[in-house]
């Protein structure tokens, strides 16, 4: 049996390198085109996943929730590519957008009436501080000029 840390490390490696690919891609293409090509990449994975499972037996409600989740994910992808296109560094944009569980906790609090635990309150405070600090560009910091497909 393979240890779970091996799988987790593979996930970290793939998602980590994905952030680099996203920035490199945005140096060559518009945010809109990147959304389309990334979706193509996701679609390539569907036959593989289809071999492992089926959607048979899922209720219409759950299918709708899944499709809406995909829509939200796609719109998020568009926003992150716009963020990178407007000059954000990958090393800032990726950690900043990875703070999205903050909104998940907020939405769960509002709509599912879940009360954040003490630890989650600490996480929320840290996320807010991290967001503000990651967004800070020193006044003397040179504006990054996006290289057009230079890499």
């Amino acid at each position, binding site marked *: 049996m393979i240890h*779970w840390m091996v799988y987790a490390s593979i996930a970290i490696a793939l998602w*980590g*390198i*994905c952030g680099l690919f996203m920035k490199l891609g945005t140096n060559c293409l518009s945010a809109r*085109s990147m959304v*389309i090509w990334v979706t193509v990449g996701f679609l390539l994975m569907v036959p593989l996943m289809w071999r492992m499972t089926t959607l048979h037996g*899922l209720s219409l409600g759950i299918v709708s929730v899944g499709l809406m989740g995909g829509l939200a994910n796609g719109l998020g992808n568009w926003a992150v590519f716009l963020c990178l296109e407007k000059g954000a560094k990958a090393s800032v944009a990726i950690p900043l957008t990875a703070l999205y569980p903050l909104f998940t*906790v907020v939405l769960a609090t509002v709509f599912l009436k879940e009360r954040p635990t003490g630890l*989650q309150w600490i996480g929320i405070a840290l996320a807010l501080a991290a967001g503000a600090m990651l967004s800070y560009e020193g006044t003397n910091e040179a504006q990054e000029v996006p290289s057009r*497909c230079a890499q």
Partner: protein
Amino acid sequence: MRTKQSHFPVWVLYALVCTFWWGLWGFLSKIGSASATPLQLQILFTLGMLPVAVGMLLKMHWKLECNLKGASYGILSGVATGLGVLAYYAALHEQDASVVTPVTGLFPLLTVVLAFVVLRERLNKVQMTGMILALAAIAILSI
């Protein structure tokens, strides 16, 4: 006369919009996970992305940019994310989400290292501190 320039970079706004949409996606995942397996949800998520891609194509009057390098990076991003999700689910098969998710949440650290090496990106001290706080926040909020 010099006009005072705003130091609020526009990309921050897009980053916030992104966190909102991905946060909503996380919320819907939470609801969906009660009745569907992660793999079933992942297929539905992929199908749900299609209207956004079609919307982009419509906005571009069906004239898709086909720069080979850019398209390759885009496709690789999608494949890498998808494979990463499969690896994540495999980890969840062996261990609880409250243990796995905070660990996989460390992935931005690798992006920072790669961006430092490949793109020669440098973070200022404030951003570096923010990065450390972000990793702690991601880990805590993932539990």
